[in-house]
């Protein structure tokens, strides 16, 4: 089997198990909904004000929901001792990383799609546009790339759930800064060229950390 096939097998395993157990998506969706509702209590205002606050609310929700679902990615493997099973499989560490990354990306995209929908409904701001969806996808690749690496790291430490956000948030801060600013421009109807430098930062982040995590992942899971 080639690397791609093996990667897809790992990703498919996660997706299949998720559709049987419905552990990650359902609980993270409820969590994301709650975050949105809490934001509504914190900042209820006119439509114009909501439009100004929307990018911040959206990306905080995405980041929180993302870290929650990324945490589960390896905790599940650990709880059932599946990680040992994966390690003895004739599959390279790189394939495991890419597979886990893809499945996390898949879950996060589903969650984010739902958040965008609910957000549009609750806050009466149209956020489902092609540029918004593209931006979300691009930023989520970065989240998943570095999040999968740190999730594997966090699950092997004593504090597990606490370690991932502490590592994840400062590292993804450039993505969050860029995504919030790009969304702000998008919601105000800016053209692509105005957002190019923000998109560039996110794209650079994706490339750098996808490559770095791919190369470094083997050091995290070695026994």
């Amino acid at each position, binding site marked *: 089997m080639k690397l791609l096939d093996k990667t897809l097998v790992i990703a498919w395993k996660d997706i299949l198990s998720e559709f049987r157990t419905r552990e990650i998506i359902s609980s993270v969706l409820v969590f994301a909904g709650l975050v949105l509702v809490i934001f509504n209590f914190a900042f209820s205002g006119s439509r114009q004000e909501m439009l100004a606050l929307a990018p911040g609310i959206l990306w905080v929700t995405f980041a929180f929901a993302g870290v929650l679902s990324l945490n589960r990615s390896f905790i599940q493997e650990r709880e059932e001792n599946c990680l040992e099973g994966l390690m003895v499989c004739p599959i390279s560490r790189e394939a495991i990383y890419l597979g886990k990354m893809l499945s996390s990306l898949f879950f996060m995209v589903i969650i984010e799609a739902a958040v965008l929908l609910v957000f549009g409904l609750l806050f009466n701001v149209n956020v489902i546009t092609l540029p918004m969806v593209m931006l979300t996808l691009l930023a989520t690749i970065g989240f998943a790339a570095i999040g999968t690496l740190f999730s594997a*790291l966090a699950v*092997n430490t004593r504090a597990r759930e606490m370690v991932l956000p502490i590592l994840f948030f400062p*590292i993804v801060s450039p993505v969050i800064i860029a995504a919030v600013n790009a969304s702000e421009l998008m919601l105000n109807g800016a053209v692509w060229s105005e957002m190019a430098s923000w998109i560039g930062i996110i794209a650079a982040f994706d490339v750098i950390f996808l490559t*770095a995590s791919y190369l470094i992942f083997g050091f*995290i899971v070695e026994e």
Partner: protein
Amino acid sequence: MLSMLLISFYRRIKKYFLIIFGTLLMLAHLYMVFIFVPTDAETGIIQRIFYIHVPLAWIAFFAFFITLIGSIMFLWKRDFKWDRLASASAEIGFLFITLMLISGCIWAKPVWGVWWVWTARLTMSLVLWFIYAAYFIIRAYISEPGQRARFAAVVGIIGFLNIPLVFAAVELWTTQHPGMIIFEGGLTTEMKLTLIVGLVAYTVLYALLLKDRFVLKNFKNELNQMKNLVTGG
């Protein structure tokens, strides 16, 4: 006769050379900061903190660079001395970046009347502060030494790779939301000289601290090995 005396004198002080040299440089730097350098025409006396703030920032970044080197070397060679070097350097870098943030606050207060402004440099340093705080939290949460060193090395590498991206993002962010610029006047020769002496003095201080921390960590490691031998662990 004189040369003999000089050589024996040199042999005696060789061990302390860096300490003596560093102390002299520090004293000279303090003299330059408070007396030698002219007061900045625009922002006044508070601008003198610049000569301490910038060397602190330089050392913080340099220390994290050494952590990067130590981290890569550990993953490559699997020799724990590299892990000790990386963590010793990160400790000093963390101390210096903390001091740099504090000196930034002290600088901001009289100039703008607030302790904190989201300038590009301060924002970036704050993010770095959090990254290296995470570095130590990770170390504290793992008891197995091999795993601790490996995981810390991963964070040390990823954290450093992130610096240019954080920098690009906050630079762009502060140009789009125009903030305030701390100090942009041209530097006179005296100002440049004071800054250069400061940079050298703090670099010597870093080297001394790093050596001490590194040696201490080596002793600790030896002690642990002996303990394990005695208790049969």
